């Protein structure tokens, strides 16, 4: 929340679309009705629906209620504008700043402005960026494109964030929060206000006295590296760093730094799935593979490799395998190990086939691992194999167990 604890002192708030240039002209303020201003990228109905949905995000968890007015000054005046648009905080053209809003106060307080130079959309299919889904040729590299710039920013998501400011929320440093200052693409149809935002807004206004309208998903929380019971979805090396996956999130840690950096998977690879099953790096071809259910995605840097996602059968796994629990690649021997339930599959990178004698029980190769493997990776000739919050350190050459460790060994609690 803002340092001055800024909030509205009433529960019923009004909002209105208005052209900000016109609003500042005295003639307009003296009675001439402003012209309503809509984004040229979307239909009027789509803009209306996006704004109403964005306000309902906050109404759903507080006593606040919103009603639209079509004349006069509303508490929350909403407009599209470009460059200098009358509030001394000019927009910057395409990309960069998408929108801004003012904290609760009379006058300009509560107002939300959207940068008309951005391409806004109602929704994108499947919460992904269609232009990235087709993949890019493997030879292309370079800097990543801004997230979904080619298909547009979902107005609902941007508006819901801005209305958080309009109601008194500052920025959150939780990368999973709606109030995190960086745009994160997600599917508006399945959006649920994260726990951090719920706690923030309810600290100002309290909960919705009517309670939730029906059974719905719990507000999502952000995984905590300091949680000793944390069970990671997957772990892999990538270009000299270690990546730890959990839900929608990943932590990346450079091996020469002790501080992990948390982000959303979608911010790295907009076409990648959340809640992956396994991840593995193949350094020889500079690729990282992400496994989920029966599919595998390959990325080179930020780019999806052409032809992916593919079936996990492309790694020789039989059709009976529904998902991979963990994977690691021993670059020295060229063997990719897949953990599936209590079984181990070994894929020979040279022959591109499963090794004879596999699958076999995991504890035949790694005798101390009796539980289900949840994640695994190779680092400096050692296999690090997770079973829940416990991590086994094996020499890959001798398969000898060296140490039992926990998450915090690599994923430090800061």
């Amino acid at each position: 929340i803002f340092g001055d604890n800024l909030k509205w002192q009433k529960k019923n708030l009004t909002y209105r679309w208005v052209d900000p240039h016109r609003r500042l002209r005295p003639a307009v303020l003296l009675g001439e009705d402003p012209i309503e201003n809509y984004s040229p990228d979307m239909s009027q109905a789509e803009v209306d629906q996006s704004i109403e949905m964005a306000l309902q995000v906050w109404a759903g968890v507080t006593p606040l209620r919103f009603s639209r007015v079509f004349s006069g000054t509303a508490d929350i005046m909403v407009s599209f504008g470009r460059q200098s648009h009358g509030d001394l905080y000019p927009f910057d053209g395409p990309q960069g700043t998408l929108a801004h809003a003012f904290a609760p106060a009379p006058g300009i307080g509560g107002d939300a402005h959207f940068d008309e130079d951005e391409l806004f959309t109602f929704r994108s299919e499947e919460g992904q960026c269609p232009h990235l889904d087709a993949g890019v040729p493997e030879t292309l590299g370079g800097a990543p494109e801004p997230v979904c710039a080619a298909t547009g920013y979902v107005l609902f998501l941007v508006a819901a964030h801005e209305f958080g400011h309009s109601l008194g929320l500052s920025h959150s440093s939780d990368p999973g929060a709606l109030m995190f200052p960086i745009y994160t693409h997600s599917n508006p149809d399945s959006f649920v206000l994260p726990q951090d935002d719920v706690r923030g807004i309810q600290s100002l206004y309290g909960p919705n006295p009517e309670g939730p309208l029906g059974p719905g998903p719990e507000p999502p929380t952000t995984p905590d590296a300091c949680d000793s019971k944390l069970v990671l979805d997957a772990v892999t090396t990538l270009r000299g760093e270690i990546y730890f996956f959990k839900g929608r999130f990943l932590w990346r840690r450079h091996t020469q730094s002790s501080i992990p950096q948390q982000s959303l998977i979608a911010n790295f690879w907009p076409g990648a799935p959340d809640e992956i099953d396994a991840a593995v790096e193949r350094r020889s071809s500079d690729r990282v593979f992400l496994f989920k259910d029966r599919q595998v995605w390959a990325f080179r840097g930020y780019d999806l490799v052409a032809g992916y996602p593919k079936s996990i059968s492309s790694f020789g796994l039989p059709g009976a395998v529904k998902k991979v629990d963990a994977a690691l690649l021993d670059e020295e021997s060229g063997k990719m190990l897949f953990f599936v339930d209590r079984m181990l599959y070994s894929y020979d990178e040279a022959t591109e086939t499963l090794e004879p004698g596999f699958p076999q029980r995991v504890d035949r190769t790694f005798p101390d691992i009796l539980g289900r493997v949840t994640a695994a990776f190779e680092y400096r000739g050692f296999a690090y194999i997770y079973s829940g919050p416990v991590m086994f350190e094996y020499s890959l050459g001798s398969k000898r167990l060296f140490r039992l460790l926990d998450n915090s060994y690599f994923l430090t609690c800061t």
Partner: protein
Amino acid sequence: LPWETMPDEELAKSYLKSFYNFREDNGSAVRRALSPLSQKLSEMQRFFGLEITGTLDPATLEVMRKPRCGVPDGKISAFS
């Protein structure tokens, strides 16, 4: 200039001016242990959970290039 074509240091200064109240010349003759740019970079890195180096490293630039809300992270209430 569009953000993606700005030189790195110019991008960083522009970003920190917009979102961290960074001023290049504060008129102070007092010798500082850390330059104002470095201080503001550290502030930004702390907020985003980046490694606090006070320097313009690739991870920091990466965050600066991402599309974002225009309200400053630090002096947000000054708007009202």
